[in-house]
């Protein structure tokens, strides 16, 4: 299979997964009982007209889906409706136009609320991932190189502890520490900063980012260290490392030119698989530090039972993770020439 075909296959698979998430998202919010828009309709105190008005407003007067006669032996929905006039079709049509509904709490379009917050989350995850990968790889390389010495045991023990920390708890502890050390405790910027010069604004943001990023880095550092270490130990016991040593290359040259790239391969896979967990970490960290991203949007939406926001945020996060996963796959292909001819 050549490279283009492999990439096309992965791309097609990612698109299919996205479709699955879109359908899952629709049905989750209609099958499960919690949504107050529908709970409200069942309130016996409401007048008939009021119920009807609510149903129209949330589009609940339309049938959920068409019956899909040809697909399903069990009759689902009504067969006498126009499939273009079902809730499912309207949901998909709205999605293609970038409409995710209206927030119950702020009455603003969900898409606008999330768009503001998406980049803050990307900023936090990006900074945290880069730092944890760089430090994790460095520690892992160091531990592998010094395998079976006390430095190695220390690095492994610290990584295991870091891995075991609940993200939000570490956030709380660091927040507690930061509160007595002059760090800003919440948000992304000090109010009133927007009138300051740009450089000062950035400095302010960096100060606000410090604790959340530190939390993020520590939590993901451990896993990257452990994986890098075991992967590098495996590579360093390969025959071609002995060849490189016989060629008279120094330990540093062997690490740099023969071992690192090969040892990075499993790490790329783990980073890809971890992207889902990464989001889990971001939600917790944003909740603790009130960082205005998607995660705190979810946290606030849970507290306020603001379901359109929750639905939109879940969809956005899932799609972002699927795309990021696809990109990680591409990186793997680029790193390992062997995959191309498999």
């Amino acid at each position, binding site marked *: 299979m050549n490279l283009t075909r492999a990439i096309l296959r992965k791309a097609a698979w990612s698109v299919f997964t996205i479709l699955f998430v879109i359908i899952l998202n629709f049905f989750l919010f209609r099958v499960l009982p919690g949504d107050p828009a529908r709970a409200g309709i069942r309130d016996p105190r409401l007048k008939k007209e009021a119920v009807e008005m609510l149903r129209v407003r949330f589009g609940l007067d339309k049938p959920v889906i068409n019956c899909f006669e040809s697909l399903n032996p069990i009759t689902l929905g009504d067969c006498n409706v126009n499939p273009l006039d079902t809730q499912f079709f309207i949901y998909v049509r709205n999605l293609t136009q970038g409409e995710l509904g209206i927030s119950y709490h702020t009455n603003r379009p969900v898409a606008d609320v999330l768009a503001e917050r998406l980049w803050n989350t990307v900023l936090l995850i990006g900074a945290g991932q880069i730092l944890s990968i760089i430090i994790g790889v460095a520690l892992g390389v160091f531990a592998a190189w010094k395998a079976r010495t006390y430095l190695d045991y220390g690095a492994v023990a610290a990584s295991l502890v870091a891995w075991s920390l609940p993200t939000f708890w570490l956030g709380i502890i660091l927040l507690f520490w930061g509160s007595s050390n002059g760090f800003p405790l919440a948000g992304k910027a000090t109010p009133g900063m927007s009138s300051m010069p740009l450089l000062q604004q950035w400095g302010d943001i960096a100060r606000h980012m410090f604790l959340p990023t530190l939390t993020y880095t520590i939590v993901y550092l451990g896993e990257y260290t452990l994986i890098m270490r075991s992967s590098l130990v495996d590579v360093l016991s390969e025959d071609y490392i002995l060849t490189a040593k016989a060629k008279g290359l120094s330990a540093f040259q062997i690490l740099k030119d023969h071992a690192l790239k090969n040892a990075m391969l499993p790490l790329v896979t783990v980073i890809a698989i971890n992207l889902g967990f990464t989001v889990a970490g971001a939600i917790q960290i944003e909740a603790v530090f009130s960082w205005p991203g998607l995660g705190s949007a979810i946290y606030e939406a849970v507290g306020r039972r603001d379901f359109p926001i929750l639905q939109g945020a879940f969809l956005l996060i899932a799609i972002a993770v699927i795309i990021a996963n696809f990109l990680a796959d591409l990186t793997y292909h680029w790193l390992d*020439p062997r995959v191309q001819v498999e």
Partner: protein
Amino acid sequence: MQTTLQTVERSNPLGVRFLGFWNTFKKSRTGVLGLVMLTVIILVAIFAPLLAPYGRLETVSISDIYKPPSALHLFGTDDAGQDVFSNFVFGARVSLTVGFFAAFISIIIGGTFGLVAGFFGGRWENFIMRFTDIMLVIPDLPLMVVIVALTKPSLLNIIFVIGLLGWTTTARVVRSQTLAVKSRKFVLRARAIGASRGHIISRHILPLVMPILVVQAVLVISLAILNESALSFLGLGDPTTLSWGQMLNYAFGRGAMSAGAWWALVFPGFGIVWVVLGLTLLGQGLEQVLNPRLDTHHLMPSRPVVQNEARAKPVPSQALLEALNLSIHYVNDEGRAPARAVENVSFTLNEGELLGLVGESGCGKTTLMLALLRLLPSAGQIVDGRVYFHGRDLTALSEVEMNEIRWSGISIVFQGAMNALNPVRTVGDQIAEAIIKHIPLYPREGIPARVTELLDLVGIAADQRDHFPHQYSGGMRQRALIAMALACNPQVIIADEPTTALDVMIQAQILELLDLLRKKLGLAIVFVTHDLGIVAEMCDKVLVMYGGVTAEYANVDVIYNDSQHPYTQELLKAFPDLTKPKKKLTSIPGYPPRLDALPAGCRFAPRCPAVFDRCHAEEPSLHQIGNDGHIASCHLIERTR
């Protein structure tokens, strides 16, 4: 995940198997520590009512809000005036319950999916694995948040949501293990005699999948506990029970931070870390039993060379390469006796000479060759002897000085050509690397031409230069390694069984090539092989090794016509001779001795056809025969004289 399945002997009763497992497990200090940590917290959860000074969710005094730790309240009080220590102890019950039950659901689902996919294959496998892939990409915590938010946040709901979403990795791991087990002999045999599928799964496959499932369960429990605490912290916990996450949610949301009540924030989190760390350590210990890793590699520092100071420092001869009384041991950390891999071996090699080093596998040939270049693995140690190259003692050089000699003075062609080349770099690039390292002044623009020339020398076309090793055939890779060995014009090439894995035609080509290069470039070659027939045509001298010692060392015609050691004679009998087509071929019964359990007396005695009493009692010394350097270690020589 590949595992050493030999450790699980199926025919043994469960008790014996468990004992064997436990004996290996208890050597892992991390595993035992994890088990202890986990046991402690489980005991705390079980005996919670006895340990807790106050009742479950009992408000001690509404005026005692956020009181710091004291003798009365070991962990202080919380926002509702409740004793944090009591809540902590009861919280252990909630967190562990969620963890164990959710993991149970995940393991059952994941295990079933993995078994079905791996065992039945085909459409089932396709469908299950595709579904698993999809579920693996969808981020779980956001999905859990959505589902719990849309349903009632009761403990039961949380258990089910975490359980129903946590099975993906288990399914993958179990599937690959089932695939591995399915193709093993006893399963194939059971199928051949017509055992039912149910029987095969329950009696043959499940016992071998089980250990992996246990390791996986430990991981899944810890993830479930972390997920439960995160959900609770985000405000989706069961408000009627107080898990550690729920305690943190209340404390964080109700002003513990501004009240400075660190105790309400630290202790519940400490509980989570304790359990998760305990489980992680336990998982590491179990993994070590199933899949033992030595954690050794080629960059670990080698052990220092030891010299027998009692012996006078020898004077090097005029030879190009000379090994004198070389002894190499493999030492271990467990206090067992070292494996005496090579003992008191000497040889000399002059310019343009070809030395054949012959012996069965496990006779110390490769160890000896690696020691020449000081490339021994970290357990290997030169415990006596010297290596002279141009009269310079290589055993006394520093690592940096040694790197100068490697490849530019002595290069080596390894056996098993596949792994000897780096799979992610092109062959040409790997050859060029040696030139750049050792001939820094070589004009950079001339290097590609030089690499092409080297490849041409071994019969590889120029357009293959920029190909990766996996695009080469086995014979081509071996030839590429020879080209690489020639890159810096070394005086000596060590060829360590370069033809073992190749077919006869390619073998012949490679041998001819080496012989040709020797004549053309004046190289000296040490050719390691277990095939006496190969060396006959090309060698000048032959060194026969057995069990780490010199059996016989002589010129090639002496070896063939006047060998003194029974081992050499037996080796000769084991190979066909074209001039005597009717001659019966024989093989030597038995195997070379284990180097860490050598027999007393002569190492060859247990297999020797001419053995007599003295052989079992006394190790033969090296006997000089004649004046042309013929050496053999056998008591028979004294007898005949």
